[in-house]
């Protein structure tokens, strides 16, 4: 499974994940609390500098991840041109773009393993409240392990369909795929039990 972490090594890769997440929360809250256009423009400039600093490859990858907000930028632009509330429109667009860009920046500069460790640290207190968060230690790798398995299964099903039909397979493949997922769950549940259940679980005698 390929994570969205940037392969371009930046200085921010070395910063603690918790600090980056805290900074993101702070910056996001800050932007929501102010209506100053100047502050928003400064924030945008700062974000662009952060994206540009590690070099061209990092910058283009970052901009590609931002494309998903483009339809909303266009939508807001048209809306505010019609209602003639330009100041408000620019503010909303800037806020949206900066927020998403900052959040993506944390993702791009933090490795999957560090993120996972952070989740374990953040969820540890919940365990004392009786929530079974220790199961995440087994559940997260299980999902990562089985996504390619299910994708491959969907592709062989599509192939088997095409071998005998000229119509597109579409949703009809979902039933066998779902049965496959249920069967795999039974098998892996058994394999898990054969080797002592999920991690971090205190076994009954």
């Amino acid at each position, binding site marked *: 499974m390929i994570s969205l972490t940037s392969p371009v090594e930046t200085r921010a890769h070395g910063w603690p994940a918790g600090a980056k997440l805290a900074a993101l929360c702070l910056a996001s809250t800050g932007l929501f609390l102010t209506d100053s256009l100047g502050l928003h423009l400064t924030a945008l400039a700062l974000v662009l500098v952060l994206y540009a600093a590690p070099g061209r490859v990092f910058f283009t990858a970052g901009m590609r991840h931002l494309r998903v907000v483009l339809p909303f930028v266009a939508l807001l632009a048209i809306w505010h041109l019609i209602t003639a509330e330009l100041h408000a429109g620019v503010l909303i667009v800037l806020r949206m773009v900066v927020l998403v860009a900052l959040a993506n920046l944390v993702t791009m500069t933090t490795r999957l393993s560090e993120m996972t460790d952070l989740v374990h640290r953040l969820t540890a207190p919940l365990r004392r409240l009786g929530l079974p968060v220790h199961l995440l230690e087994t559940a997260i790798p299980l999902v990562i392990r089985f996504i390619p398995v299910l994708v491959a299964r969907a592709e062989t099903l599509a192939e088997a369909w095409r071998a005998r039909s000229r119509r597109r397979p579409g949703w009809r493949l979902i039933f066998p795929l779902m049965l496959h997922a249920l069967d795999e769950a039974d*098998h892996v549940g058994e394999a898990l039990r*054969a080797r002592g259940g999920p*991690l971090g679980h205190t076994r009954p005698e």
Partner: protein
Amino acid sequence: MSDTASDDIRLDDLGYEIAGRPVLSGLTLATSARSIGVVGRNGSGKSTLARLMAGLLQPTSGTIRIHGHDLFRDRRAALETVGILFQNPEHQIIFPRVDEEIAFGLRQLGQSKTEAAEGARAVLAGFDKLHWQDATIAALSQGQKHLVCMMAVLAMRPRLMILDEPYAGLDIPTRRQLQRYLNRADTRLFHISHDPADLADCAQVFWLDQGRIVAQGAPCPVLADFTAEMNRLGELDDLADLAG
């Protein structure tokens, strides 16, 4: 043959039903052989027997004692006593990476994260596969996945290794290599197969048919009879019969 109960595999009038239909019935055996083979056709109840032996299923009737333990009830003893290798490695591998998969069992035995990672490396080194540790499971071939399963189970140092048709669908060189790794491992084997050739090296063989043991003894005579019977059945058309 030793007579101490702790070294034995004992099945006493073992039965197992699925939805009221008997899959295994009246299985009684006691053995302390070092390598045990069970031969039978598809649907003879072999896989169910493997799961019962590993303590994954609860018998409908009768008892199983492996080295003196009831492994369905006592899961801690089960982890230290038996390992099971399933037919399809896809059904067994839980983690996306080779080292995680091997370390998992070690952590289940109570080792810390770092100890388990260390142990996984030692196992990989023992198999001369240290370069596999960061490999993703999805990138491995079928035979390599089988070997990962084997390493993951052997890492837990089970006293008895249950093999549920582990070689089905593998080519001859892969089979031979896996067999060699297994023979080298210091563990008892309980090997279940439909192919008599897999079981020729066993010390003792049981023939399972329709949930019952129909013959047992040294591999030579039992497997020869089994092969003759299978060839005879091959002439008939019992594929037409529906179960139940």
